[in-house]
C-alpha cells in the first residue's frame, strides 16, 4: 500500500518549513516570471538573475502553495544557483523525467526535437541530489502538477533570460 511517508519525506517537510532563497530580486536586472496552477490556485514566482557568461548568479522564489509545490521550488532554487542556463535546462529535463514526464518539443524545422533528445541524454548525468526525495510524488499523480509548477515557471524564466 502506498503510504503518506512516500510523499511527505522529512527533507520535503524541511524545505516546506524553511524555504531556501525565499524573497524577491530587483527587476531588472533579474527576470520575474509567475506560474499558476489553475486547479488549486497555487502560485510560484521565480526571480532569476543571470550574469554575462550565462551563469545563474542569483535566484529567489515567491508565491504560495502546498508543501509539495513550495518544497519543490525551494529545492530547485538550491539546485540551479551557480549553474549555467544550459545546465539548468538539463536539470529541468532530469526532474521531469523523475516525475515520469518525457517531453519532446518539435520545432518547424525539426531542430527542437534534436535538442530535446540531446537534453534527455545529457540529463541522465545530472545529479538531482535532494530532489530525489520528490520521487514519491509519482505515486500520487494528482500532485505531479504541484511538484512541476516551479520547474515550468523556471523554464519560462530561462527562455526570457536567454532572450534578454
Amino acid at each position, binding site marked *: 500500500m502506498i*503510504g503518506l511517508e512516500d510523499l*511527505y519525506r522529512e527533507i520535503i*517537510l524541511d524545505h516546506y*518549513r524553511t524555504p531556501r532563497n525565499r524573497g524577491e530580486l530587483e527587476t531588472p536586472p533579474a527576470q520575474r516570471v509567475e506560474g499558476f496552477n489553475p486547479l*488549486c490556485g497555487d*502560485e510560484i514566482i521565480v526571480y532569476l538573475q543571470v550574469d554575462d557568461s550565462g551563469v545563474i548568479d542569483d535566484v529567489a522564489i515567491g508565491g504560495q502553495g*502546498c*508543501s509539495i509545490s513550495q518544497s519543490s521550488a525551494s529545492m530547485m532554487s538550491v539546485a540551479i544557483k551557480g549553474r549555467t542556463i544550459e545546465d539548468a535546462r538539463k536539470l529541468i529535463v532530469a526532474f521531469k523525467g523523475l516525475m515520469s514526464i518525457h517531453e519532446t518539443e518539435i520545432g518547424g524545422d525539426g531542430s527542437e526535437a534534436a535538442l530535446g533528445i540531446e537534453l534527455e541524454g545529457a540529463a541522465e548525468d545530472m545529479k538531482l541530489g535532494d530532489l530525489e526525495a520528490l520521487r514519491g510524488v509519482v505515486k500520487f499523480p494528482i500532485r505531479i502538477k504541484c511538484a512541476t509548477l516551479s520547474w515550468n515557471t523556471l523554464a519560462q524564466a530561462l527562455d526570457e533570460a536567454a532572450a534578454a
Partner: protein
Amino acid sequence: MTLPAAIKSDFPLLDQQFHGHQLVYLDSANTSQKPQVVIDAMADYYEHTNANVHRGSYELAVRATAALEGARAKVASFINANSDSEVVFTKNATESMNLLARSWAETNLSAGDAVVISEMEHHANIVPWHMLRAQKGIELRWIPVDQSGHLDLSDLDRLLDGAKLLSVTAMSNVLGTLNPIAQLSERAHAAGALMAVDASQYVPHVPTDVQALGADFLVFTGHKMLAPMGIGVLWAKAELLDAMPPFLGGGEMILNVTKDGFTTNEIPWKFEAGTPMVAEAVGLGRAVDYLSELGMDNVRQHEVELTAYALRTLTERHGDKITIHGPTEPAERGGVMSFIYGDVHPHDVAQVLDQSGIAVRAGHHCAKPLMDVLGANATSRASLYVYNDKSDLDKLADALSAVDDIFSF
C-alpha cells in the same frame, strides 16, 4: 432520526474501501452519489424503453417520449413550477446560466445596462456575465460579503438602481450561507430588475418553491441531487421563455424549416435542440421521487442537525487549530463547511484525509472572487448529504489529528 438509519445501503458506491478504510464521502457539494433506484431506472430505460423522442410513431418511441416528459413533470412539481413547459432540460447548471445570458440577457441588455451579482458566486454565475460585458459593454456590479459570511445588503438600493438583472446564489458552495432569495426578488422587482437564482446547492437540500422564492429564473443541476451527470435545469416563467430567442439551433427546437428560414417550436422544446439526454432525465425523475419519498423537510432537518454536530465536534476537537468559514448558526446555512487547518495547505489536508478514506475537496471551489474576500487561496471543504451521519464526522475529526502528526511545527 429524520431519515432511515440504513440509508447508506441505498448507495452502492459508498460500500467500498480506500487505503484500507471504509469510504467516508464528504464531497456532495461537488457531486452526489447515486442511489441504486436511480442507477436501476437508467438501466431499465436502456433495457426496455430506449428510442428517439418526439419522432417515432411506434409504441416504443411513444414510451420513450413519455419517459422524458414524465421526468419533466416530476421536476416541475418538485420545484412548484406553474407548468411543465417552464422546465428546460440542459446539460448542467452552467449551461442553464449560459442559456439565460446568451438568450435572455443578450436580447434584452444593451451597453451600460447593469447586472448585479454577489462576491459569493460560483464561476458559473460570474464568467457568462464577464463574457457579456466584453461582448456588449454591460456593467457588472457586486454585492459584498461580510466577515460573517453573509451578503452585505446595506448598499443594495444603489447597486440595483437602473439594474436589469439580479443574479445570486441561493446557497453558497463555499460558505454554506443561505441567502434571503424571496427578499432579494422583492427588492429586484421593486427596482425594475428581474431575479435569477443559482440554486445548484439549494434544490438538492432545501424544499424549493419557485413561486415562494419570487424568482424569474432558477438554475440547478441533476448530479448534485442524486441524479446522473449530464442533465441540468433552467426554470423560467413561461412568458419570459416565450419571448426569448433560441439558444442552440437544430432538430427538435423547430416547427418548420425552409430554405428561407425556420420557425421555433413551443417552449420548452424551443431550447432543447438535438436529441436530448433521455436516460439522464429518467434518472433525474427517479432521484426526485427518491428525495420526495424521504421528504425534503426531513432532508433539510437531517442536514441542519448534522451540520450542528459537525460544527460542534470539529470545534471541540480542533478548536485551537481549525477555522470554519461561513455562518455559525446551522439554521442559516447548509451542510457545506470550508475550513482552514492551522497553517497547513488545504491540498495537504485533503491528501492526509484521503489516506483515511475520507473524501473532501481542496481548492478554490470555482469561487475565486470569494477566496479573495476570505483572504485565502484555497480551503478544504467537507460537504454533507442524506447518506452522511455522525460517524462520518467523527472519522473526519479523528483523521484531522493525523494532519497534526505530519505537519506540526
